């Protein structure tokens, strides 16, 4: 009996130790990758790129379903970015609120004769509008078909060679699109690129830009900021070294439009349409022996809104994990397939491990203390568990915070930096367990084959300040 108990405890603790150990290794390589990407100071590089006239045209597509609260701020933010050849297409996916009306009022919309040239199948487009105030802006009003369908309508409408998908609640940094498009000008094989996504909760937003960066007052939102730093500071930079990105955030991803048309665009009704698309890009390019690269531009910055309420956070995390599960299952043939290089041999197994990490975490957070309380485990086991579940995890988070502070210095106020350090420790008191529960719920949802409607139950938005 003791042997069985100790085996279970060893499995839980060992799993966690490996998980955090992998993250620690990823951090070390992420730091080197950031150094490699910084071959010129970001602002200087952006200015040079703009003067080079070599950046391809970009169509920014903003799918929106009942986003009346945030859509004007988002469009203003995109319009004020520094980019020479830009077009913006807002796709109202059968919105039933005032999305269309607020856009019409803010940007003086009028009917447009411009029609979509792409051929991806989508729900019917009811009307196309253009802005009398800014010739770069178009708005599509279409029948409801989901986020992927709205994005496909945007791909059809796009007239520029590059397609940028952004969420309806984002605020873009002034030079974000320049940094995102630059890899396409530097390397002809780049087919997609993504940038850094950070929550703007707590920040001041004026005239479509983040004017002052501060931490929010809510600890739930602060802890999410830490998670974003970990995911982008570690994961994306690490995978960039090996051309092994399996995901480009739906909030901020730039693609070669011709390639998207070739592969049939986004998959309608996919739970994680953004990840599914990137995995399909890998498969398409490898199967056709086409040289390709998926890039992460660390200096391309996009601000998004993290959920305020726990309910919204739970729904989001469950959806993300369910999406991860669905994509990994659908493309399981990629796993360890040498043809897919690091994407199949390195990233895929890491994501599989990420998928099952909540199981180890749950075992460790519930089972080990319970067994110790029942007298089945010694104090040494508890010490090992504490080291693996808290110390190692906090170490990884602190390293990510240091990397972020040294590399980007977004949070300048000492109180904010201290709050981030505190989050690295405090997340183990309740928050981590909560997110484990949210992620485990995805397995249950999948088991019951309850299909979550992808992304369109938008969480409560805070009005612009």
């Amino acid at each position: 009996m003791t042997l069985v108990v100790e085996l279970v405890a060893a499995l839980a603790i060992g799993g966690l130790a490996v998980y955090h150990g992998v993250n620690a290794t990823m951090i070390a390589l992420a730091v080197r990758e950031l150094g490699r990407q910084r071959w010129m100071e970001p602002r200087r590089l952006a200015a040079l790129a703009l003067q080079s006239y070599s950046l391809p045209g970009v169509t920014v597509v903003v799918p929106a379903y009942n986003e009346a609260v945030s859509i004007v701020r988002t469009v203003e933010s995109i319009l004020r970015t520094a980019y020479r050849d830009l077009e913006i297409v807002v796709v109202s996916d059968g919105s039933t609120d005032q999305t269309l009306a607020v856009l019409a009022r803010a940007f003086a919309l009028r009917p447009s004769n411009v029609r979509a040239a792409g051929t991806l199948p989508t729900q019917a487009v009811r009307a196309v509008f253009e802005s009398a105030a800014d010739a770069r802006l178009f708005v599509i009003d279409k029948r409801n078909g989901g986020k992927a369908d709205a994005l496909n309508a945007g791909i059809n409408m796009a007239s520029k060679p590059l397609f940028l998908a952004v969420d309806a609640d984002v605020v873009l940094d002034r030079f974000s699109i320049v940094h995102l498009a630059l890899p396409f000008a530097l390397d002809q094989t780049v087919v997609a690129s993504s940038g850094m996504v950070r929550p703007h909760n707590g920040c001041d937003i004026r005239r479509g830009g983040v004017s002052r960066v501060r931490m929010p007052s809510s600890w739930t939102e602060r802890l999410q900021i830490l998670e974003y730093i970990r995911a982008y500071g570690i994961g994306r930079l690490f995978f960039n070294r090996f051309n092994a990105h399996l995901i480009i955030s739906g909030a901020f991803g730039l693609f070669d439009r011709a390639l998207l048309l070739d592969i049939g665009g986004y998959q309608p009704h996919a739970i994680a349409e953004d990840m599914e698309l990137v995995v399909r890009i890998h498969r398409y390019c490898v199967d056709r022996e086409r040289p390709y690269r998926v890039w992460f531009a660390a200096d391309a910055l996009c601000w998004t809104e993290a959920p305020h309420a726990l309910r919204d956070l739970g729904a989001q995390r469950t959806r993300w994990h369910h999406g991860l599960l669905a994509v990994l299952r659908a493309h399981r043939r990629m796993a360890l397939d040498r043809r897919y290089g690091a994407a199949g041999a390195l990233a895929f197994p890491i994501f599989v491990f990420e998928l099952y990490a909540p199981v180890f975490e749950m075992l460790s957070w519930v089972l080990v203390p319970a067994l110790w309380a029942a007298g089945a485990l010694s104090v040494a086991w508890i010490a090992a568990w504490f080291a693996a579940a808290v110390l190692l995890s906090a170490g990884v988070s602190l390293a990510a915070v240091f990397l972020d502070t040294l590399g980007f210095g977004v949070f300048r106020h000492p109180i904010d930096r201290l709050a981030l350090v505190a989050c690295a420790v405090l997340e183990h008191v309740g928050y981590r367990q909560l997110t484990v529960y949210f992620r485990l719920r995805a397995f249950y949802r999948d088991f019951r084959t309850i299909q979550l409607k992808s992304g369109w139950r938008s969480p409560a938005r805070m009005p612009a300040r």
Partner: protein
Amino acid sequence: MTLLAVIVVVDLLLTFAIAATAFRTRRAAIRRRLHRRRSRRFERVPPRLMELLRSNDDDVLLETLVAAGMHAVDAAPALVPVVEIVRERTGRVQFVAAWAAVRILGESPGGLRLLQQDASAAVRMVVVRAALHAGRLDSSMLTAVMAGALRDPDATVRSAAAAGLRDLDPEPSLYPALVAAMEDPAEVVRLAAADAIGRGRSRLDPSAMSTLVERADEPARQVFLVALTRSGGTGDAFVPMAQNPSSPHRLAAIRLLGASRSREVRAALVHLLDESDRTVRAESAAAAAWIARTAYPDPIEPALTDRLLALVERHSSAAIVEPAIEALAHSGDERVPPALLARIPDSPQAIGERLVEAAALFGHLQRWRRAAGA
């Protein structure tokens, strides 16, 4: 536990060490060195500039190229080695060298014609960018360079030239090259050329324009008509051709009527919507829809609305009814919503849905008109 604590500490130390190394690069030192040289101005030290441009160290090369581009006026002697770098290198070095070459050529465009014959597409691209953005280029030189670029064997060079011409107003002598570019194998070139011709203030004659509309593929035709409408339209030049049943370009002419704001054109459309030929009626309805969208926030003439309502009443063919419904939704005539909704019971489901959506769109547009004070 001790082992794990050690791992955490080592992890933190490792992160700090690597971060410190990564951010304390040689680039800052190189920049300082160059800055000292730059303060003495390049024209006094050209041999030094040439020497630095031959460096094998990418960091030194990048900073030197940036300095050459920043001081383009004084860096003309560096054009040859900079172009050499564009030709031979790839990635970030080529990118910065191309930027520097564009700036140097912009200041002293004498070498443009010579470099346009270069074997490297990257160099020819530099020529196009420099020609488009150089302030010191006369129009005959620009026309010659652009005409050559539109015939370039490389599609990216051709598309850069066509796209650049959209923002200029192309000289009439460039039109033959642009018209030829509308049959380019690369879609991006076709669209850019269509846009450039449509936006240009000089107009092709009606016959040439009709031929162009007929021969262009649908996306290019669409882009051409939108650009033409935005740049002032066609007046009533196409009315005689559209009304002539024996004209070989009749359908193209009707389509071009949509790009006009003339009252004569609308009067002509009233009659064309009554033609016996179904294709003529469908094209006329599409032209009416185009006009109704362009006319917003002004309503279209009641006579045209009457004819469109009659068309919706009489026909069931989607090719005719759908553009007519589209035109009516934008018409601004208050009789339209009840008339559209009354047609729903007798319509197939797809048309019925379009009728409902058109009535809703009419409502949106009326509210926006009122809000705008129209």
